[in-house]
Protein backbone atom coordinates (compact mmCIF):
# COMPACT_ATOMS: atom_id res chain seq x y z
CA UNK A 1 0.00 0.00 0.00
CA UNK A 2 1.34 3.37 -0.93
CA UNK A 3 1.02 6.47 1.21
CA UNK A 4 1.23 9.86 -0.44
CA UNK A 5 1.32 13.06 1.56
CA UNK A 6 0.62 15.84 -0.90
CA UNK A 7 0.93 19.49 0.09
CA UNK A 8 0.95 22.71 -1.87
CA UNK A 9 4.71 22.89 -1.52
CA UNK A 10 5.22 19.43 -2.93
CA UNK A 11 4.79 15.74 -2.20
CA UNK A 12 6.27 15.22 1.25
CA UNK A 13 6.11 11.45 1.45
CA UNK A 14 5.54 8.79 -1.18
CA UNK A 15 6.43 5.28 -0.04
CA UNK A 16 5.17 1.75 0.40
CA UNK A 17 3.80 1.25 3.91
CA UNK A 18 1.88 -1.32 5.93
CA UNK A 19 -0.20 0.75 8.29
CA UNK A 20 -1.12 4.41 8.70
CA UNK A 21 -3.03 5.99 11.56
CA UNK A 22 -4.74 9.18 10.44
CA UNK A 23 -6.65 11.71 12.52
CA UNK A 24 -10.02 12.51 10.89
CA UNK A 25 -13.00 14.61 11.91
CA UNK A 26 -14.75 11.40 13.00
CA UNK A 27 -11.82 10.26 15.10
CA UNK A 28 -8.61 8.46 14.43
CA UNK A 29 -8.63 5.74 11.79
CA UNK A 30 -6.01 3.08 11.16
CA UNK A 31 -5.68 2.05 7.56
CA UNK A 32 -4.29 -1.32 6.54
CA UNK A 33 -3.88 -2.73 3.04
CA UNK A 34 -7.18 -3.49 1.28
CA UNK A 35 -9.11 -0.87 3.16
CA UNK A 36 -12.36 -0.01 1.43
CA UNK A 37 -12.34 3.12 -0.75
CA UNK A 38 -13.08 6.09 1.46
CA UNK A 39 -12.98 9.86 1.25
CA UNK A 40 -12.95 11.78 4.49
CA UNK A 41 -11.65 14.96 6.10
CA UNK A 42 -8.41 14.94 8.05
CA UNK A 43 -7.94 17.28 10.95
CA UNK A 44 -4.76 18.65 12.41
CA UNK A 45 -2.86 15.93 14.23
CA UNK A 46 -0.28 13.19 13.98
CA UNK A 47 -0.09 10.60 11.24
CA UNK A 48 1.71 7.47 12.42
CA UNK A 49 3.23 5.29 9.73
CA UNK A 50 4.49 1.73 10.02
CA UNK A 51 6.40 0.58 6.99
CA UNK A 52 6.42 -3.21 7.41
CA UNK A 53 4.11 -5.67 9.07
CA UNK A 54 6.95 -6.94 11.23
CA UNK A 55 8.45 -3.56 12.04
CA UNK A 56 8.51 -2.71 15.72
CA UNK A 57 6.59 0.22 17.14
CA UNK A 58 9.91 1.90 17.78
CA UNK A 59 10.49 2.33 14.06
CA UNK A 60 7.25 4.20 13.41
CA UNK A 61 7.41 7.45 11.48
CA UNK A 62 5.45 10.49 12.60
CA UNK A 63 4.11 13.38 10.58
CA UNK A 64 2.51 16.55 11.85
CA UNK A 65 -0.35 17.50 9.53
CA UNK A 66 -2.86 20.29 9.31
CA UNK A 67 -6.41 19.79 8.09
CA UNK A 68 -7.10 18.35 4.68
CA UNK A 69 -8.65 15.52 2.72
CA UNK A 70 -7.91 11.81 2.91
CA UNK A 71 -8.58 9.69 -0.12
CA UNK A 72 -8.24 5.94 0.30
CA UNK A 73 -8.10 3.91 -2.89
CA UNK A 74 -7.12 0.27 -3.20
CA UNK A 75 -3.35 0.20 -2.95
CA UNK A 76 -3.02 3.90 -2.22
CA UNK A 77 -3.76 6.47 0.45
CA UNK A 78 -3.62 10.05 -0.72
CA UNK A 79 -3.63 12.75 1.93
CA UNK A 80 -4.07 16.30 0.64
CA UNK A 81 -3.11 18.73 3.38
CA UNK A 82 -1.92 22.29 3.73
CA UNK A 83 1.09 21.20 5.67
CA UNK A 84 2.91 17.98 6.53
CA UNK A 85 6.21 17.67 8.35
CA UNK A 86 8.23 14.61 9.23
CA UNK A 87 9.47 14.26 12.80
CA UNK A 88 13.03 14.57 11.52
CA UNK A 89 12.34 18.04 10.18
CA UNK A 90 10.89 19.50 13.33
CA UNK A 91 13.23 21.14 15.79
CA UNK A 92 11.76 20.75 19.23
CA UNK A 93 13.19 23.93 20.71
CA UNK A 94 11.90 25.98 17.79
CA UNK A 95 8.44 24.48 18.07
CA UNK A 96 8.40 25.16 21.80
CA UNK A 97 9.34 28.78 21.21
CA UNK A 98 6.70 29.10 18.51
CA UNK A 99 4.11 27.57 20.81
CA UNK A 100 5.00 30.02 23.57
CA UNK A 101 4.64 32.90 21.14
CA UNK A 102 1.28 31.57 19.96
CA UNK A 103 0.10 31.19 23.55
CA UNK A 104 1.02 34.75 24.40
CA UNK A 105 -0.72 35.90 21.20
CA UNK A 106 -3.81 34.06 22.35
CA UNK A 107 -3.73 35.73 25.75
CA UNK A 108 -3.30 39.15 24.23
CA UNK A 109 -5.87 38.75 21.45
CA UNK A 110 -8.12 41.78 21.29
CA UNK A 111 -10.91 40.58 19.06
CA UNK A 112 -12.49 37.39 17.81
CA UNK A 113 -10.46 37.29 14.59
CA UNK A 114 -7.15 37.52 16.39
CA UNK A 115 -8.25 34.94 18.91
CA UNK A 116 -9.26 32.55 16.14
CA UNK A 117 -5.90 33.01 14.44
CA UNK A 118 -4.01 32.49 17.68
CA UNK A 119 -6.00 29.32 18.39
CA UNK A 120 -5.05 27.96 15.02
CA UNK A 121 -1.40 28.73 15.67
CA UNK A 122 -1.53 27.11 19.09
CA UNK A 123 -3.09 23.96 17.67
CA UNK A 124 -0.56 23.82 14.90
CA UNK A 125 2.45 24.12 17.15
CA UNK A 126 0.99 21.74 19.73
CA UNK A 127 0.83 19.09 17.02
CA UNK A 128 4.35 19.81 15.84
CA UNK A 129 5.67 19.65 19.35
CA UNK A 130 3.90 16.37 19.94
CA UNK A 131 5.48 14.89 16.82
CA UNK A 132 8.89 16.12 17.87
CA UNK A 133 8.36 14.55 21.28
CA UNK A 134 7.24 11.20 19.84
CA UNK A 135 10.16 11.25 17.50
CA UNK A 136 12.67 11.91 20.24
CA UNK A 137 11.30 9.15 22.45
CA UNK A 138 11.50 6.71 19.62
CA UNK A 139 15.10 7.48 18.96
CA UNK A 140 16.09 7.18 22.58
CA UNK A 141 14.60 3.71 23.00
Amino acid sequence: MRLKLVTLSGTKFDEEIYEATIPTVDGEIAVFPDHEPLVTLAKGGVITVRKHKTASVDDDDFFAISGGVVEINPGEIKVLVDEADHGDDIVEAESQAALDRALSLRDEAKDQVELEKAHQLVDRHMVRLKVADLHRRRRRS
Partner: protein
Amino acid sequence: MASTRQLKGRIRSVKNTKQITKAMQMVAASKMRRAQDATKASSDYTRSAQELLTHLAAQGATNGHPLFTDRPVKSRLLIVIAADKGLAGAYNTNVMKAYIQSLKSDDKEGVRNMTISVGRKASQFVSRIKDTEVIGTYNDLPDHPEGSEFYAILSTACDKFVEGTVDAVDVIFTRFVSSMTQTAEVQRILPAGFSAETVSEFVRDATYEPSVSVVLEGVARRMVGAQLFQALLDARASEHSMRMLAMKNATDNATELADDLTLEMNKARQAAITQELAEISGGAEAMNG
Protein backbone atom coordinates in the same frame (compact mmCIF):
# COMPACT_ATOMS: atom_id res chain seq x y z
CA MET B 1 34.16 61.33 -35.92
CA ALA B 2 33.82 61.49 -32.15
CA SER B 3 37.01 61.95 -30.21
CA THR B 4 38.79 58.99 -28.66
CA ARG B 5 38.13 60.35 -25.20
CA GLN B 6 34.37 60.58 -25.78
CA LEU B 7 34.28 57.08 -27.20
CA LYS B 8 36.22 55.74 -24.25
CA GLY B 9 33.64 57.23 -21.90
CA ARG B 10 30.77 55.68 -23.78
CA ILE B 11 32.42 52.27 -23.85
CA ARG B 12 32.93 52.43 -20.13
CA SER B 13 29.29 53.30 -19.47
CA VAL B 14 28.00 50.58 -21.80
CA LYS B 15 30.23 48.05 -20.06
CA ASN B 16 28.95 49.15 -16.67
CA THR B 17 25.37 48.71 -17.82
CA LYS B 18 26.28 45.31 -19.15
CA GLN B 19 27.63 44.25 -15.78
CA ILE B 20 24.38 45.25 -14.14
CA THR B 21 22.14 43.52 -16.65
CA LYS B 22 24.34 40.45 -16.47
CA ALA B 23 23.96 40.34 -12.69
CA MET B 24 20.20 40.79 -12.97
CA GLN B 25 20.08 37.98 -15.48
CA MET B 26 21.89 35.64 -13.09
CA VAL B 27 19.62 36.57 -10.20
CA ALA B 28 16.51 36.08 -12.32
CA ALA B 29 17.82 32.73 -13.54
CA SER B 30 18.31 31.34 -10.06
CA LYS B 31 14.98 32.70 -8.87
CA MET B 32 13.31 31.24 -11.91
CA ARG B 33 14.67 27.80 -11.18
CA ARG B 34 13.29 27.94 -7.66
CA ALA B 35 9.93 29.33 -8.79
CA GLN B 36 9.71 26.68 -11.47
CA ASP B 37 10.26 23.92 -8.92
CA ALA B 38 7.56 25.41 -6.72
CA THR B 39 5.05 25.43 -9.59
CA LYS B 40 5.81 21.81 -10.33
CA ALA B 41 5.59 20.84 -6.67
CA SER B 42 2.12 22.24 -6.14
CA SER B 43 0.70 20.97 -9.41
CA ASP B 44 0.42 17.49 -7.83
CA TYR B 45 -1.89 18.86 -5.17
CA THR B 46 -3.92 20.92 -7.58
CA ARG B 47 -4.43 17.96 -9.89
CA SER B 48 -5.59 15.63 -7.11
CA ALA B 49 -7.85 18.32 -5.75
CA GLN B 50 -9.36 18.94 -9.15
CA GLU B 51 -10.05 15.26 -9.58
CA LEU B 52 -11.85 15.08 -6.26
CA LEU B 53 -13.94 18.15 -7.04
CA THR B 54 -14.90 16.85 -10.47
CA HIS B 55 -16.11 13.70 -8.86
CA LEU B 56 -18.10 15.46 -6.16
CA ALA B 57 -19.71 17.57 -8.85
CA ALA B 58 -20.62 14.46 -10.84
CA GLN B 59 -22.46 13.13 -7.79
CA GLY B 60 -24.61 16.23 -7.73
CA ALA B 61 -23.26 17.13 -4.33
CA THR B 62 -22.26 20.57 -5.47
CA ASN B 63 -25.80 21.63 -6.38
CA GLY B 64 -26.79 24.46 -4.15
CA HIS B 65 -23.37 24.85 -2.57
CA PRO B 66 -22.65 28.57 -2.32
CA LEU B 67 -19.26 28.33 -4.01
CA PHE B 68 -20.64 26.42 -6.97
CA THR B 69 -23.77 28.40 -7.82
CA ASP B 70 -23.76 29.32 -11.48
CA ARG B 71 -25.54 32.67 -11.82
CA PRO B 72 -25.91 34.90 -14.86
CA VAL B 73 -22.85 37.14 -14.65
CA LYS B 74 -23.91 40.71 -13.89
CA SER B 75 -20.78 41.71 -12.06
CA ARG B 76 -17.44 40.06 -11.65
CA LEU B 77 -14.26 40.32 -9.66
CA LEU B 78 -10.96 40.44 -11.48
CA ILE B 79 -7.79 39.49 -9.65
CA VAL B 80 -4.88 40.92 -11.62
CA ILE B 81 -1.47 39.45 -10.89
CA ALA B 82 1.60 41.30 -12.14
CA ALA B 83 5.10 42.03 -10.86
CA ASP B 84 6.36 44.41 -8.19
CA LYS B 85 9.17 45.56 -10.42
CA GLY B 86 9.62 46.37 -14.06
CA LEU B 87 12.48 45.38 -16.36
CA ALA B 88 10.85 42.08 -17.18
CA GLY B 89 10.25 42.51 -20.87
CA ALA B 90 6.60 42.48 -21.85
CA TYR B 91 5.51 40.72 -18.66
CA ASN B 92 3.53 43.53 -17.07
CA THR B 93 2.29 44.90 -20.39
CA ASN B 94 0.85 41.54 -21.43
CA VAL B 95 -1.08 41.16 -18.18
CA MET B 96 -2.41 44.71 -18.46
CA LYS B 97 -3.46 44.10 -22.05
CA ALA B 98 -5.47 41.06 -20.99
CA TYR B 99 -6.95 43.11 -18.16
CA ILE B 100 -8.00 45.96 -20.44
CA GLN B 101 -9.54 43.46 -22.82
CA SER B 102 -11.63 42.03 -19.99
CA LEU B 103 -12.71 45.50 -18.94
CA LYS B 104 -13.74 46.32 -22.49
CA SER B 105 -15.77 43.16 -22.93
CA ASP B 106 -17.44 43.82 -19.57
CA ASP B 107 -18.25 47.32 -20.74
CA LYS B 108 -19.86 46.00 -23.88
CA GLU B 109 -21.99 43.48 -22.03
CA GLY B 110 -22.91 45.83 -19.24
CA VAL B 111 -21.15 43.80 -16.58
CA ARG B 112 -19.98 45.74 -13.54
CA ASN B 113 -16.60 44.80 -12.19
CA MET B 114 -14.31 45.04 -9.22
CA THR B 115 -10.58 44.55 -9.10
CA ILE B 116 -8.03 43.18 -6.70
CA SER B 117 -4.49 43.88 -7.79
CA VAL B 118 -1.44 41.87 -6.81
CA GLY B 119 1.97 43.40 -7.40
CA ARG B 120 3.05 47.03 -7.38
CA LYS B 121 2.91 47.43 -11.16
CA ALA B 122 -0.65 46.11 -11.29
CA SER B 123 -1.68 48.36 -8.41
CA GLN B 124 -0.27 51.46 -10.10
CA PHE B 125 -2.09 50.58 -13.26
CA VAL B 126 -5.53 49.84 -11.82
CA SER B 127 -5.48 52.92 -9.62
CA ARG B 128 -5.53 55.04 -12.78
CA ILE B 129 -8.57 53.30 -14.24
CA LYS B 130 -11.88 54.91 -13.49
CA ASP B 131 -14.51 52.38 -14.49
CA THR B 132 -13.60 49.68 -12.01
CA GLU B 133 -13.88 49.53 -8.26
CA VAL B 134 -10.58 48.56 -6.65
CA ILE B 135 -11.31 46.61 -3.49
CA GLY B 136 -7.81 45.51 -2.61
CA THR B 137 -4.18 45.95 -3.52
CA TYR B 138 -1.46 43.60 -2.40
CA ASN B 139 2.17 44.47 -2.98
CA ASP B 140 5.46 42.72 -2.27
CA LEU B 141 4.09 39.23 -1.90
CA PRO B 142 6.81 36.75 -0.98
CA ASP B 143 8.02 34.22 -3.55
CA HIS B 144 6.11 31.52 -1.76
CA PRO B 145 2.78 33.22 -1.03
CA GLU B 146 1.54 31.11 1.87
CA GLY B 147 0.98 33.85 4.36
CA SER B 148 -1.87 36.06 5.39
CA GLU B 149 -1.97 38.03 2.12
CA PHE B 150 -2.88 34.91 0.23
CA TYR B 151 -5.69 34.05 2.63
CA ALA B 152 -6.90 37.62 2.59
CA ILE B 153 -7.26 37.55 -1.18
CA LEU B 154 -8.90 34.14 -1.10
CA SER B 155 -11.43 34.97 1.57
CA THR B 156 -12.31 38.32 -0.01
CA ALA B 157 -12.98 36.54 -3.28
CA CYS B 158 -15.02 33.77 -1.66
CA ASP B 159 -17.00 36.14 0.55
CA LYS B 160 -17.88 38.50 -2.30
CA PHE B 161 -19.03 35.55 -4.33
CA VAL B 162 -21.05 33.91 -1.56
CA GLU B 163 -22.84 37.09 -0.56
CA GLY B 164 -23.72 37.70 -4.20
CA THR B 165 -21.84 40.97 -4.74
CA VAL B 166 -20.11 39.34 -7.70
CA ASP B 167 -21.31 36.47 -9.85
CA ALA B 168 -17.90 35.31 -11.00
CA VAL B 169 -14.26 35.61 -10.01
CA ASP B 170 -11.56 35.61 -12.67
CA VAL B 171 -7.81 35.60 -12.23
CA ILE B 172 -5.67 37.37 -14.81
CA PHE B 173 -2.15 36.01 -14.62
CA THR B 174 0.69 34.73 -16.75
CA ARG B 175 0.71 30.98 -17.17
CA PHE B 176 4.12 29.40 -17.07
CA VAL B 177 4.06 26.99 -20.00
CA SER B 178 7.81 26.50 -20.28
CA SER B 179 10.85 28.64 -19.69
CA MET B 180 10.49 29.89 -23.26
CA THR B 181 6.70 30.37 -23.39
CA GLN B 182 4.51 32.29 -20.97
CA THR B 183 1.04 33.48 -21.84
CA ALA B 184 -1.22 35.99 -20.13
CA GLU B 185 -4.50 34.26 -19.36
CA VAL B 186 -7.88 34.83 -17.77
CA GLN B 187 -8.97 31.92 -15.61
CA ARG B 188 -12.29 31.57 -13.84
CA ILE B 189 -11.95 30.27 -10.30
CA LEU B 190 -15.50 30.96 -9.06
CA PRO B 191 -18.08 29.56 -9.46
CA ALA B 192 -15.84 26.58 -8.84
CA GLY B 193 -15.66 24.94 -12.24
CA PHE B 194 -14.41 21.55 -13.15
CA SER B 195 -12.10 20.48 -15.87
CA ALA B 196 -13.08 17.46 -17.86
CA GLU B 197 -10.44 15.44 -16.06
CA THR B 198 -11.34 11.76 -15.83
CA VAL B 199 -11.96 10.38 -12.38
CA SER B 200 -10.29 7.15 -11.38
CA GLU B 201 -12.98 4.57 -10.75
CA PHE B 202 -11.99 4.04 -7.14
CA VAL B 203 -12.85 7.56 -6.17
CA ARG B 204 -16.18 6.98 -7.82
CA ASP B 205 -17.01 3.98 -5.63
CA ALA B 206 -15.69 5.42 -2.44
CA THR B 207 -17.61 5.91 0.77
CA TYR B 208 -17.79 9.47 2.05
CA GLU B 209 -17.45 10.10 5.74
CA PRO B 210 -19.16 11.73 7.54
CA SER B 211 -21.15 12.63 4.39
CA VAL B 212 -20.66 13.90 0.87
CA SER B 213 -21.78 17.39 1.77
CA VAL B 214 -19.50 17.68 4.80
CA VAL B 215 -16.52 16.53 2.75
CA LEU B 216 -17.46 19.01 0.06
CA GLU B 217 -17.67 21.80 2.61
CA GLY B 218 -14.18 21.00 3.81
CA VAL B 219 -12.76 20.63 0.35
CA ALA B 220 -14.33 23.43 -1.67
CA ARG B 221 -12.58 26.48 -0.30
CA ARG B 222 -9.29 24.67 -0.19
CA MET B 223 -9.56 23.71 -3.82
CA VAL B 224 -10.41 27.21 -4.94
CA GLY B 225 -7.43 28.31 -2.88
CA ALA B 226 -5.19 25.81 -4.60
CA GLN B 227 -6.14 27.27 -7.97
CA LEU B 228 -5.38 30.78 -6.83
CA PHE B 229 -2.12 29.61 -5.29
CA GLN B 230 -1.11 27.91 -8.52
CA ALA B 231 -1.88 31.09 -10.44
CA LEU B 232 0.35 33.11 -8.09
CA LEU B 233 3.20 30.64 -8.45
CA ASP B 234 2.84 30.52 -12.21
CA ALA B 235 2.89 34.29 -12.37
CA ARG B 236 6.05 34.36 -10.30
CA ALA B 237 7.84 31.76 -12.41
CA SER B 238 6.81 33.59 -15.60
CA GLU B 239 8.02 36.90 -14.23
CA HIS B 240 11.45 35.56 -13.45
CA SER B 241 11.90 33.78 -16.73
CA MET B 242 10.73 36.80 -18.72
CA ARG B 243 13.05 39.02 -16.73
CA MET B 244 15.89 36.63 -17.36
CA LEU B 245 15.24 36.72 -21.09
CA ALA B 246 14.92 40.50 -21.15
CA MET B 247 18.18 40.89 -19.24
CA LYS B 248 19.91 38.39 -21.48
CA ASN B 249 18.88 40.43 -24.51
CA ALA B 250 20.08 43.59 -22.81
CA THR B 251 23.43 41.99 -22.03
CA ASP B 252 23.80 40.78 -25.62
CA ASN B 253 22.95 44.22 -26.96
CA ALA B 254 25.44 45.83 -24.61
CA THR B 255 28.15 43.45 -25.77
CA GLU B 256 27.42 44.27 -29.37
CA LEU B 257 27.36 47.99 -28.71
CA ALA B 258 30.63 47.84 -26.79
CA ASP B 259 32.24 45.95 -29.67
CA ASP B 260 31.05 48.50 -32.21
CA LEU B 261 32.25 51.39 -30.09
CA THR B 262 35.64 49.76 -29.53
CA LEU B 263 36.03 49.35 -33.27
CA GLU B 264 35.12 52.96 -33.81
CA MET B 265 37.55 54.07 -31.11
CA ASN B 266 40.38 52.09 -32.65
CA LYS B 267 39.63 53.63 -36.02
CA ALA B 268 39.64 57.10 -34.48
CA ARG B 269 42.94 56.42 -32.73
CA GLN B 270 44.50 55.07 -35.92
CA ALA B 271 43.24 58.09 -37.86
CA ALA B 272 44.79 60.39 -35.29
CA ILE B 273 48.13 58.58 -35.53
CA THR B 274 48.09 58.64 -39.32
CA GLN B 275 47.32 62.32 -39.29
CA GLU B 276 50.11 63.07 -36.86
CA LEU B 277 52.60 61.10 -38.96
CA ALA B 278 51.47 62.93 -42.06
CA GLU B 279 51.98 66.24 -40.31
CA ILE B 280 55.47 65.28 -39.12
CA SER B 281 56.58 63.99 -42.48
CA GLY B 282 54.98 67.03 -44.11
CA GLY B 283 56.98 69.29 -41.78
CA ALA B 284 60.24 67.38 -42.45
CA GLU B 285 59.62 67.61 -46.16
CA ALA B 286 59.16 71.38 -45.88
CA MET B 287 62.40 71.81 -43.89
CA ASN B 288 64.40 69.73 -46.38
CA GLY B 289 62.88 71.50 -49.29
